[in-house]
């Protein structure tokens, strides 16, 4: 089963993302409520796709991307950034650091599903 890491500090937002992902197919979601939690989970859990917010209190999303791209295991793992309007400079940096796609809040569920299928595909139930 394909596994997706969702790193997002807003609980409400995170649960919406999880619901959207689970509704779109046979995916298992690993949740992290902060950058630190993601750092703890990544070495232990095997994930096929990483979705992260940029604006987080402990380490920001860019630093997480940097970490991910420098690690052997996740060097080539697909990675999406979630950002809000008006933070284009940070999104640019994220893409330069190696993120594959970005989504702007409010997230369009259809677009998220489309991108997930495009990168790690699994036929939906």
């Amino acid at each position: 089963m394909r596994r997706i890491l969702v790193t997002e500090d807003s609980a409400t937002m995170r649960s919406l993302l999880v619901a959207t992902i689970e509704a779109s197919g046979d995916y298992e979601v690993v949740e992290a409520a902060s950058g630190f939690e993601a750092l703890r989970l990544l070495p232990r859990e095997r994930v096929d796709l990483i979705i992260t917010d940029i604006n987080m209190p402990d380490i920001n999303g860019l630093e997480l991307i940097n970490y991910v791209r420098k690690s052997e295991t996740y060097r080539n793992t697909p990675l999406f950034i979630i950002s809000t309007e008006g933070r284009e400079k940070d999104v640019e940096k994220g893409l330069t650091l190696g993120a594959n796609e970005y989504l702007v809040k409010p997230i369009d569920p259809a677009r998220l599903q489309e991108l997930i299928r495009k990168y790690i595909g699994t036929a939906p139930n």
Partner: protein
Amino acid sequence: MAEANDISGKAVKDFLAEAEEILDQLCADLGIMSDGIDTGECDPDSLNSVFRGAHSLKGLAGMFGFAGIQDLAHNMENLLDSLRLGKVDLGSHVMNVLMDSLEALGTMIRNLGEGGAEEPALQPLLKRINDCVTNSGGLESDSVLASLDIPASMINALTEYEEHRLLENIKKSRNIFSVLASFSLATFDQDLAELTDSLKKNGEVISTLPSVGSNMESSIDFEILFGSAKGLEEVAALVAEANATARWVNAGAGTPRKTAGEAVAAKPLVIEDAFPVPVETDEAQVPSGGAETGITAKSMSRTVRVDIGKLDDLMNIVGELVLSHSTISDIGEKMRKAGYSTMLAELLKAAKGLERKLNELQKGVMEIRMIPVGQLYEKMGRIVRKISKEQGKKVDLRLFGADTELDKLIMEDIADPLMHIIRNAIDHGIESPEERRNSGRSERGAIRLSSYQKGNHVVIEVEDDGRGIDLDKVKRKAIEKGLIPPNDTLTDREAVELIFLPGFSTSDKVSEISGRGVGMDVVKNNIAAVSGMVDVESVPGQGSRMTITLPITLAIIKALIISTAGRYYALPITSVLESIMIESTDILTVERKEVIQLRENTLPLLRLNRFFQLNGEQESENVFVVVVGVADKRLGIVVHELMGQQDIVIKTLGPVFEGVRGVSGAADLGDQRTILVLDVGGIISEATKGGCQV
């Protein structure tokens, strides 16, 4: 957007809960920033935290389609971003715009919470926010960054804000270091926090960059960018405790300095002086929301959010259990009277065990509802700052007893009255700085807010060191308004109570703050509605003190059941001091009021049947008197019979009966009898007012 509201009631509730948490944090952070302005500095961490709060709220609102909130948060975020990037200077004018925006956000969110429609963000307010943002501002050059001895990947991982902080540190001629540390994956968050805490005491932590450790599964490395006035040896020594190393980074900025020492402060964050610029008349009408009551949970990680309705349900269930227990006890009594002694012993034992468990359960549920008064203090702090600035007065707020706990519902209901009392204290009590100087006192007035538990009550005191209450002025106004006859002789204690009469106000102009129909009588009624009492003391030229006495909780209480004229009533045990039997000849009449001598004091009496205008005078020689008291007031209630003690659950009677003095609710007695629960504070007030012939 109507669809958003239909998504699911639960989702909207989640939004509200999270939005209010964000709001509370914003409130606290803005408070810190506001205090900072007075001393001329702006804490970048608080500013950044406020920025993040607005940013999160914008995203959250956008997700749910609450365009008004999203719009306002978005505009605030722009302003805050400009502030933290140094493009806009923080001063009291901008601070006021931020405070007003926060208040508007609170109102909009509360409207949603009460089921109202979302209102669009106010155009005038948005304009005020945008007027603060200028697009001109220092543009930072990339060449400065490139000349630093930092790997390009680290620079690329800095957000725009972190870049700005780095450049600020360089401008202030601070030394920039890179600290490398390696931690075990299991404990890195604590270890990192310890390291950054000790670094923060000596400078600014600009960024922390994680990278994979030597063994990805068990360790993790961090490169920390740190700006400080300290030299390399000091910093290296500081981080050595965490087994970390430090090296120079800004070698490109000329000779590496050992100490930044007497640095040329390049462009400090400019703070204007503390008094606000006069405000234009066409300013935005910020919707006045009164006291911001909010549903809060203290911290996301260690607590569980509970819907207050569920707690009420739990309390109801506990109440029913209490009744069942009473029934069992009653059956036991009946059995004893009928002579079934062996089975009875077992039954009574079981009943006792049940009672013990019930007490524990009741205590446990009540504790869930208890919230520290400190939460109320935070809101009051903001109000004091705002009003004292508006009035041009200097006020220090001193807080005591923030840990004292109070039932959440009671706390919500007294937030508004408390706020009005404090507004009055600043408005009427504390004098202007010149007046205070002229009378030889300190320019800064003080308001002391303290809470403590006293028996089964919580006392909240609001004390100011202002001019006190002018009793002559009060008496004159009362006579003018026809509230007392002209030749009435009142003691000082009675005169000061006049301010609680409806229609009373000594303000000649209706100030927006304490006028507009919210007088002390409304405050007193609101407090009485939660079975509380308010007293006032004052010394002219020294100050005044308002004392609010509240029950700790309104749920299950022990009560004394009494009867008079064939009707049963319940008296909360917490207000009952003692019950005595006297002879009718002991009753004396002094100035048309009945009293008795109780030890050394004279105790006024109140015949309950006359108070409630019931028929049925008692004609026996022996009379039962229940001595009750709240705060330091005493009264003897004359009743016909004492029926015993019982645990009861007070239920409110609803809005129709709100104005009835002396009754705080009703309770089920278990055998399908419902009786009224007496409000001792209210009865004492009525009795001592002299308004009814008792």
